[in-house]
């Protein structure tokens, strides 16, 4: 499962020029040592950490400890990951689009109409796409893996002029 998920991630990031493409993404596991808790995230109590692994568009894996109730947009931003939240997390822009590990997707609460409406505008929508600002951490998500799609659009006619 881990394998196919990584492959899916690589497909998503195809359009991005990669400077250090890892040969085997799974071996590049980073633990952020001292995350800066700025913004809207909380520091988990010892023993209550919920682990999330972000997979960046370059294939890097970054594991972070999170606190119940915090959402993926805030978590990503607090850890300086490349995720914009143009509407500030109000489910009105789709710039926080993430792809959830299919193994965990069904453990999330279903997206509501508002989220689905915005997801319909996301680049490279997949079966397990979600809006980061709408996904909150809970205990049963411990170990969840989240891919950050490349924030570029498809090539357009003007690119070939």
């Amino acid at each position, binding site marked *: 499962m881990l394998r196919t998920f990584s492959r899916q991630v690589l497909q998503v990031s195809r359009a991005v020029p990669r400077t250090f493409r890892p040969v085997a993404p799974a071996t590049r596991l980073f633990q952020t040592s001292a995350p800066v808790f700025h913004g809207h995230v909380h520091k988990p109590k010892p023993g209550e950490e919920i682990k999330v692994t972000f997979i960046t568009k370059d294939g890097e894996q970054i594991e972070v400890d999170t606190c119940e109730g915090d959402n993926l947009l805030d978590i990503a931003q607090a850890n300086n990951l490349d995720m914009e939240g143009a*509407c*500030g997390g109000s489910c009105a*822009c789709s*710039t926080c689009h993430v792809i959830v590990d299919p193994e965990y997707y069904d453990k999330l609460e279903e997206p509501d109409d508002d989220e689905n409406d915005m997801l319909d*505008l996301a680049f490279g929508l997949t079966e397990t796409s979600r809006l980061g600002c709408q996904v909150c951490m809970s205990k049963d998500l411990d170990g969840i893996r989240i891919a950050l799609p490349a*924030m570029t659009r498809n090539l357009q006619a*003007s*690119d070939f002029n």
Partner: protein
Amino acid sequence: MIRSVRHLSTLRSTPRVAVVGAGPAGFYTAHRLLKLQPDTKIDLFESLPVPYGLARHGVAPDHPEVKNCQDTFDEVGNDPRVQFFGNVTVGDTLPVSKLRDNYNAVVLSYGTHTDRKLGIPGEDLPGVISARTFVNWYNGHPEHESLNPPLHKAETVTIVGNGNVALDIARILLSPLDHLKSTDITQQAYETLKTSKVKRVRIMARRGLLESAFTIKEIRELFKLPDTGFVAFPHTKWDDVLAAHKSYKRPLSRIVKLIEEYNLKAKQRDPAHASTLKQWSLDYLLSPKEVIANPDDPELVKTLIATENKLVSADGSGRIGVEPTGVTESFDTDLIFTSIGYASTPLEGIPFDDRKSVIPSSRGRVTDNGVYAAGWVKNGPTGVIATTMADSFDTAQAISDDITAGKLDGAKSGSDNLTQYLEDAISWDQWKKLEAHEHSQGDAAGKPREKVNNVAKMLEIARQ
């Protein structure tokens, strides 16, 4: 090796970048470039005394959450590496050639400044109003502060085009006043809407339902408006759509399902109740042919004549097009809003594609010596803020790659050399002073801000 690279980069002079237009494209390009090339200095030129472009003057007042992108724009504006010069029109106050001489890179992100035209007789009558003019008016753009649309005597309105801008206009016309009262709509527009007699809004598109340009969130909002009634489709055409819809991709099939649901509700509505509601409809396969003036009132029109179309996919591009059937229909209407797209205008000395009305570029590179484009002026007038953001990141990447490759080398002095053109410029701090005034006026009226919609007043307050 690493050492020598570092050594070289400290020798390299600071790249100076000029950005023309402080809308989403300008800000997002700057935002990304500062991340990719932290030692860049950016000057942001904006023709209005106020920043944010269509995030201020386009996005509907009842969509405040969309305007949260301004928080990121403020981060850019507050960054010590960025200088804002409001009230400076490039190509007018400041020649673009001066920017090319004094900067390593010039980013053209000046958006759109005019309207696409239908090109039909009667289009220039006063009762035919472009979407851009109307939207600018209710959003406090100083260019259209005096539009004053005669809503107090218009009962039936036709909007040509069915993109999200058309739906914004329909929603503003149909919304109960209390939906707008505590938004940042201008007081002037709010007072005019109070007197509005509009009871029937027709949204007219030249192609079919499956080619609709609106997106689902916006059509859902219209369906959900209180005290309004969607006018159900006549049977025949609707059944064809239903028969086909199962095979469409997720976004389209969700739209079709939604419309199906509300169409059914509309059919089941008690006619006596329906007659008490403001009505709106989606009219398809109609191309405007001529507008007939109202002989009794020059501010209004009388009739819109439209040709019925049928769908064709003839040009080989995969795009579904239309062909006239030869049948025409007449629609009585008091006002017409043309919402068929904004359009860009050329800047002297910069290549421009007149047909597409864009600055042609290759991933944002307009020339190979430091001119770039981003946003609507690069891609045409479509795309939400997320699209404009992604596109601007592409342009920033191109600039960054060119800086790294040494293509833009050379010591440039940027705005230090342009003081004679910048004497009347508004600084970021002055804009923030004006904004504080807008907020305090808004507080008094129970809204997020009361926009100043007149350049002379803007300048006066900003310079106090």
